[in-house]
């Protein structure tokens, strides 16, 4: 990580803009915001699918060690925005970005940035649990092994600690070598979280992690998110407003590609500034 920071010029071609961004972020800070630098920050960030602009000019910060929820109706661009943070949009043909999206002040879209390293630092959990058709152990070890040879004992330790963090260890410790596809949906999703944690990321992106789970599993995952916050910067996209209010510290409301409102969760849900936010969270549309 240190290495990559040195290798890439921190601000790349947007060097001229970067300082003002940081200044802007500092200027916006209120007493409630955590004292440290934001982990991820977006400035004038846009995403285009061909000629269609899916995310328009977004300015927002993800506070370090906090949970930030992104809500909004379907097709509002919240998932697209989230996926840009670890450049999953690279997999989409015809997807282009403009503006600045920075991780620790480093432009994520810099052409010389090591995507593999970025993705190690920014883990992701998907909407549907997607464990590999391998054993539970191999699923967790996958990301670690990608980074080179590692002693079996060290790997065992990482697997155990990741599973413990994801509150899955006690349920699977006796069958680490059996297929991950044999787990229940909720267990699979926690396995995916453990898999993401195994590479020791700084940021964890969650794209509607509970939408395919039953309420009981949802509760366990939410519990887990609560336990992880503090150590990880978590960004979670959700359709479930109760969930957003339960798990997040900050909430951003997206509508038609625009960031409509962003603030402390308690403020957004009790005292929204915009009419649209109010309508959405009270269920008038969306």
């Amino acid at each position, binding site marked *: 990580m240190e290495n990559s920071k040195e290798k890439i010029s921190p601000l790349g071609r947007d060097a001229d803009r970067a300082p003002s961004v940081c200044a802007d972020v500092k200027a916006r800070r209120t007493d409630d915001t955590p004292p440290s630098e934001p982990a991820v920050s977006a400035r004038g960030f846009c995403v285009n699918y061909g000629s269609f602009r899916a995310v328009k000019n977004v300015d927002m910060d993800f506070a370090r060690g906090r949970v930030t929820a992104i809500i909004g109706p379907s097709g509002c661009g919240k998932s697209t925005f989230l996926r840009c943070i*670890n450049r*999953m949009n*690279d*997999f989409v*043909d015809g997807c282009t970005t403009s503006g600045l999206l920075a991780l620790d002040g480093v432009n994520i879209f810099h052409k010389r940035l090591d*995507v*593999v*390293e970025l*993705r*190690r630092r920014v*883990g*992701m959990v*998907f909407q*549907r649990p*997607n*464990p*590999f*058709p*391998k054993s539970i152990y191999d699923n967790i070890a*996958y*990301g670690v092994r*990608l*980074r080179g040879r590692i002693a079996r004992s060290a790997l065992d330790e990482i697997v155990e600690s990741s599973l413990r963090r994801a509150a899955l260890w006690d349920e699977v410790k006796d069958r680490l070598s*059996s*297929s991950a*596809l*044999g787990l229940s949906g909720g267990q699979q999703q926690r396995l*995916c979280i453990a*898999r*993401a944690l195994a*590479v020791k990321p700084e940021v964890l992106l969650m794209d509607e992690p509970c939408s395919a789970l039953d309420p009981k599993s949802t509760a366990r995952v939410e519990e887990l998110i609560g336990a992880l916050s503090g150590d990880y910067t978590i960004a979670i996209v959700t359709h479930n407003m109760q969930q957003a209010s339960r798990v997040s510290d900050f909430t951003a409301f997206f509508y038609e590609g625009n960031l409509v409102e962003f603030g402390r969760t308690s403020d957004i849900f009790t005292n929204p500034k915009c009419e649209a936010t109010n309508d959405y969270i009270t269920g008038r549309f969306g």
Partner: protein
Amino acid sequence: MKDSSRKLLDKSFTALATFTLVMLGVCVAAFLLPIIIRGAGAVVFKATVEHEKVLCENFGRDASEADEARFASTNAAREKFYALTDAYESAAAAEKFASDIDALRSASTAGAAKYKERICGALKLKSSERAAKIREISQKLWSGYADTLARCVKESETSGGSYGLEKFLDAEADKLSAAGKEISKTLTEGSGAGYSARSAVARNSVHYALGKLEEAKSDLAETNAAYNVFKSGVRELLGPRDALEKNSLNLMRQKYGQTRYENAKKIFSEDIETLTLTQKDASGAEKSVRVSAREKFSGTPVEKMLDTLRADFDAMLAPHTAFYWGFFTDNPADANIFGGIFPMIVGTFWLTLGAMLVAAPLGMASAVYFSEYARGGGITGFLRMCVGTLAGVPSVVFGLFGLAFLINTLKVSDGKSVLAGSLTLALLILPTIIRSCEEALKAVPNSYREAAGALGATKAGAILTVVLPAALPSMLTGIIISMGRAAGETAPIIFTAATSTGLALGLGELFSQPTTALPWNIYNICSEHEMAERVGHVQYGMALTLTAIVLGLNLAAIILRMKLQRKLKNR
């Protein structure tokens, strides 16, 4: 739609599906059952003692005690039969007739003196009348001889001895001529007759006897020819009688009798009990006729031989149930009439293996390109179209391509070779492998690729570590099914690799030598074999083996897929 009509539609669909299923089952049964039943006959069958003889003498098997006992008992039974033929053919049987004929000839020669005046008178006639006159006299002179001759022929045919008689009669013409000269000498001595008159007497005085002799000889020849046909039928059934006769024969099929009881019975009824004889009809054209041996030889010793053959049939052949597993491990002998199909199995194995070694990696790589990297542009579309077209090209065209391009242009080998055949088969199944692998890769959920990517895997890394392992069961299924197709293809290997006879090839010969292979040899042995009806068991045995290989490969594909999927899903 009304509820009633909807129900009717439902029912008719169910009925149609059931009917189709039943038809399918019937077709499979009608197709497979004969192959299985008759093919099994190549391995398990009712064998005769000749089967063990072939195995012991040509395939390096040691005779078991049971075999030895069989050899002894059948030889004893055969000796009984051969004693009959010996008696029938022996010269002793003809001696009586020979001495009768000798006596009559001498008597007739001596009796010519009676006609001295008439013959001398005839010599004074014009030469054209002279011959007729002397011939008239010769008829009277030789009538007793002719009667005896006819009686002897007839008797020899019914009581035996026609063989020796025919040999005796071969010399009879010369003896008759000598008798004619003697007659001429005694009759014309001192009469002052010229040379031409003397020779006219010599010639014409035995004319009648010579004519009768020819008749007798042709009578005998016909009988003996029929007997020879009978005897060759017996030799086909039992094999040559002794080592001397055996060594004088060239083809292995002539050196042994029938190894299979069913064939032996067929030979008995078709070539021994019924004889195929060549006869001249009125216009002199030869034609073959089928006659019943029993009628032809009725009342003769041959009839007794027939009875003995029928009665001791089992004793001479010792029929028993044999398990000939060597069918799969023995080389064929004498155009598959004996032995097994080992080289064909090995050839098929090499061809299929070679095709797989080339086609599987190429096909998988192409499939990965099409499924993971190609972006659907013009070139990719064109390539896809090419693959689709290749899949539809008739296999015989691939064979021609293999011959024209691989052998004649690239010269991968001097002529047909396993290498050329394998490459041709590889090209043939490549489109199918590409397609099935591509389908398998497309069936891998995109979420696996995303998950791998999100953990920092590169595209190639994700393909190697996640996508390919997940797609492997389906890919293997497609590949193994293609393998079955390669094993069974005939047309491509006709042009590039197949030969009708040969031994199993070793690894070093694969690059230069053609091979036998099941699909081609099945065709060959069914349509090009000179004794196709005698090797029916080999035809079906080969068909069963090939079917078993292909079905086995497909079954392996199914089991493999089930196992891998279970492993991926649960334990």
